[in-house]
């Protein structure tokens, strides 16, 4: 009798102790999330209300009375609206063509469409300036024409709008194309049978159904254009055109008497704008999921007939001019022995590459730093991000949901705002105690993890969703739990998606500019910072050489990743 009751109690005791251990673990995780992801933002907001150590609205009132503020806001609105208009029209047009018509080689097109998304925007900017530059390909091509053409100056409002618009149309494209494909064709057929013509069907049925998706993509482009630092920094600062993101940067760099408070106040304004955008975008995206079907219909609905070759040639010209030619221009500049000389055999040399890879200690150090940062962030991200994604999907609860929102907050905020909040949070983690994190590479590690963890979490969530829970249950029933379950069942199925997330994190961290431009210190430079400072100092041959090198590495990484994913999926498929 006695033994029996003991047996009954024992497992319950074990259970209860693991329960309490679990709740301690949960509490710690929660505390960590609050400290890492939320406190910095709180400190930023708090700083914007500080004047001489006391709480006040004075920062806001002085800023709003400053004429410069209004000119910056005016520029920002103009730049963001203009570039968003370009992004939205290009994105919708391409999405509709790819989703609805029978043009060929859609996979190849998709690759070129996504390309501006993968290449850091400041590198694209550099490429465009070389294309339109004094000795660039554009001038050469135009001089062949019989009539004189006007020179195009990218260092202008129009230039910023143009490059921003071209850099962010993939966002609109990606969201719209899946919405277009998810509209069931019967719904359009029903409208035709009811007597509406093709055009009327597009207006009354297709467009209203696609609108939430398109609007959500448009808002994403809006936020990206608002947040972007690289493009207005490369094009706007030399021309003295300031937008919010670059103005905040200049405030911090300028070190005025109340620089931090002013920057914090501007950051709060910019941050609120960006978060509002994100909120509306999120709401619209949820609404667009209301479509009854979730299957994407990839067969063409509209046959272009005799127009097809013409449209295809037009599209390929567009891709060639926007995605290849500027980078060729940049590559050409990087091979010149001196900036401004003609591109002839005598003037071609590899000495710029030799300079950045051998001679310049700063450049070498920056490459080392960025690679090291990217590698560490990627590994830490894969471990923490996948673990979190697993719990988020398998044991969904309020706490997980809120934690995900907290983790995504630093990424939703503009880079300059986020970097500033890092300074406030980690310069003196406990008020009065400065361990020297700010001013060393440590601050970059912390900032990158805070900002980019969500990218890995999203990649890993996709991965976890791909493995149906029943597969895991089958593994458990077959007697495999813990380590062997992960090694033999979960990881093989999840790896391709985890790798995509990891690749994105690695690439983003490797080429990051915005955050590091505010957080770098000597001995802790990054690739982005070095390219930016070369360009600002007028060493264009060095900055183009470094950028060309990065493009080359990105292409290499892309091929490597698709190769791994290809062989892995074949291996998994053949095992089934």
């Amino acid at each position, binding site marked *: 009798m006695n033994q029996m009751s003991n047996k009954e109690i024992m497992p319950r005791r074990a259970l209860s102790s693991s329960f309490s251990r679990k709740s301690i673990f949960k509490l710690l995780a929660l505390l960590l999330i609050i400290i890492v992801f939320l406190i910095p933002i709180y400190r930023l907001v708090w700083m914007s209300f500080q004047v001489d150590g006391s709480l006040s609205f004075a920062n806001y009132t002085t800023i709003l009375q400053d004429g410069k503020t209004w000119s910056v806001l005016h520029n920002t609105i103009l730049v963001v609206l203009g570039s968003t208009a370009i992004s939205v029209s290009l994105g919708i047009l391409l999405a509709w063509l790819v989703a609805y018509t029978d043009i060929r080689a859609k996979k190849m097109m998709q690759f070129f469409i996504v390309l501006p998304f993968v290449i850091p925007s400041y590198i694209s900017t550099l490429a465009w300036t070389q294309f339109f530059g004094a000795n660039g390909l554009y001038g050469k091509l135009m001089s062949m024409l019989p009539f004189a053409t006007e020179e195009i100056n990218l260092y202008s409002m129009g230039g910023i709008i143009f490059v921003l618009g071209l850099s962010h149309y993939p966002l609109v494209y990606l969201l719209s194309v899946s919405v277009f494909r998810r509209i*069931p064709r*019967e*719904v359009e*057929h*029903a*409208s*035709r*049978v*009811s*007597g*509406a*013509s*093709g055009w*009327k069907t597009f207006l*009354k*049925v297709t467009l*209203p*159904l696609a609108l939430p998706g398109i609007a959500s993509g448009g808002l994403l482009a809006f936020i990206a254009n608002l947040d972007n630092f690289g493009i207005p920094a490369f094009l706007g600062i030399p021309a003295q055109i300031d937008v919010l993101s670059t103005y905040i940067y200049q405030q911090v760099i300028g070190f005025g008497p109340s620089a931090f408070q002013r920057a914090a106040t501007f950051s709060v304004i910019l941050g609120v704008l960006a978060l509002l955008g994100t909120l509306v975008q999120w709401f619209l995206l949820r609404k667009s999921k*209301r*479509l*009854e079907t979730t299957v994407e219909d990839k067969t063409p609905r509209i046959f272009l007939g005799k127009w097809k070759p013409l449209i295809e040639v037009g599209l390929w010209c567009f891709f060639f001019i926007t995605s290849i030619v500027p980078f060729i221009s940049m590559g050409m500049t990087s091979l010149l022995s001196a900036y401004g000389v003609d591109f002839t055999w005598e003037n071609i040399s590899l000495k710029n590459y030799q300079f950045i890879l051998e001679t310049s200690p700063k450049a070498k150090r920056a490459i080392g730093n960025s690679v090291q940062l990217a590698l560490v962030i990627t590994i830490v991200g894969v471990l923490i991000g996948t673990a979190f994604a697993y719990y988020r999907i398998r044991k969904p609860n309020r706490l997980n949901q809120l934690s995900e929102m907290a983790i995504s907050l630093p990424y939703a905020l503009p880079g300059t705002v986020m970097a500033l909040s890092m300074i406030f949070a980690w310069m003196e983690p406990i008020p009065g105690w400065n361990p020297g994190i700010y001013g060393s590479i440590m601050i970059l590690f912390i900032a990158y993890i805070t900002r980019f963890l969500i990218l890995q979490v999203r990649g890993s969530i996709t991965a976890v969703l791909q493995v149906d829970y029943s597969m895991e249950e089958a593994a458990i029933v077959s007697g495999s739990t813990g380590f062997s379950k992960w090694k033999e069942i979960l990881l093989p199925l999840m790896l391709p998606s985890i790798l995509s997330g990891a690749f994105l994190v690695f690439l983003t961290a490797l080429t990051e500019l915005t955050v590091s431009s505010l957080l770098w210190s000597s001995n802790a430079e990054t690739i982005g910072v070095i390219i930016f400072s070369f360009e600002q100092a007028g060493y264009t041959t060095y900055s183009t050489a470094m950028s060309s090198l990065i493009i080359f590495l990105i292409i290499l990484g892309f091929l490597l990743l698709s190769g791994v994913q290809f062989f892995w999926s074949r291996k998994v498929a053949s095992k089934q």
Partner: protein
Amino acid sequence: MSIKISQISKQFDQFTALKDIQLSIEPGEFIAILGPSGCGKTTLLRLLAGFLSPTAGSIEIGESQVGTAKRSLPPEQRNIGMVFQSFALWPHLNVKDHIRFPIQHHRFVPSALKKNEAKRVEEVLKMVDLESFADRMPSELSGGQKQRVALARAIAPKPELLLMDEPLSNLDAELRMEMRNEIQSIHRLTGATIVYVTHDQGEALAMADRIVVMNQGEIEQVGTPPEIFARPKTPFVAKFVGKANLVKGSWKEGKFTPESLPNVQWQDNGIEEGMKNQGYYPARPEQLQLTKDQDIQNAIPAVITSVQYQGKEIHYLVQALEQEWSVHADIFDKFDLGEQVYIQLKGAVVKDRVKV
């Protein structure tokens, strides 16, 4: 409205979906196009609607030619209504808007109807019994209600031709039975010509005036439901519609003798010439009975391989003459698995009375 389909063929790249289809449909007729998936029935319907154009041949609806290889009228210029398998409701419009849409856009709507739009909407809502759901969105409706909206939208502009693409296959069994009545009453009320595509022979038999059985892009047989069921002209129709056992053998002077059983003779109870020429006797499961009495004449020895109790009857599978036979017996004829039995034709008892 009459329809005339002449020598229609449809080719998709290398694949031939329809071969030389010939069919005339009378005004007000309810035609069911019946066949397994991939037989070309949906392609034929899409040609009628104008979503596809034929590779060869011509389609006439009413007086006018609507589709040839050279020129094909788009769907909105044909006087048709259509019900889709997936309902195809517009998620952003409510029930009333769905009915109003074709009244506003259809170019064949009588002007009296267009003027009294609101009245017509009410009328149609009443026909499909959805008066109290007029302001609901599609996401707030059940499957059966969605199907009623789809029907209402199709009939609202009073089209003379209604096309239906497996409209009941997304509903559960009980609802399907109910909707059959609904569709029949809509046919009576509107007097429209209906072309109804289905793979369910029960639906075709229950509702259609005439059935067109299709297989591999060709028409196998056209006829009234009793003709198709009781007097199939091809082995495919016998198997697909009547679930008949196809017994191979030879016909001599109106008598059938199965292969390898020269002593057995089955009488002709109305087998079509085509079947006779191919040396088949189609015997539907309910036309056969099983017995243990080995002295009986013209019986075929068999072994029971499967027994399924159905309540009203018992379904047996038996092995005889190197093929599997399906026999439906009443519940008093009980046999066990593996038992030796004899298959007998019920011919004397059930003689199908077919008026041709």
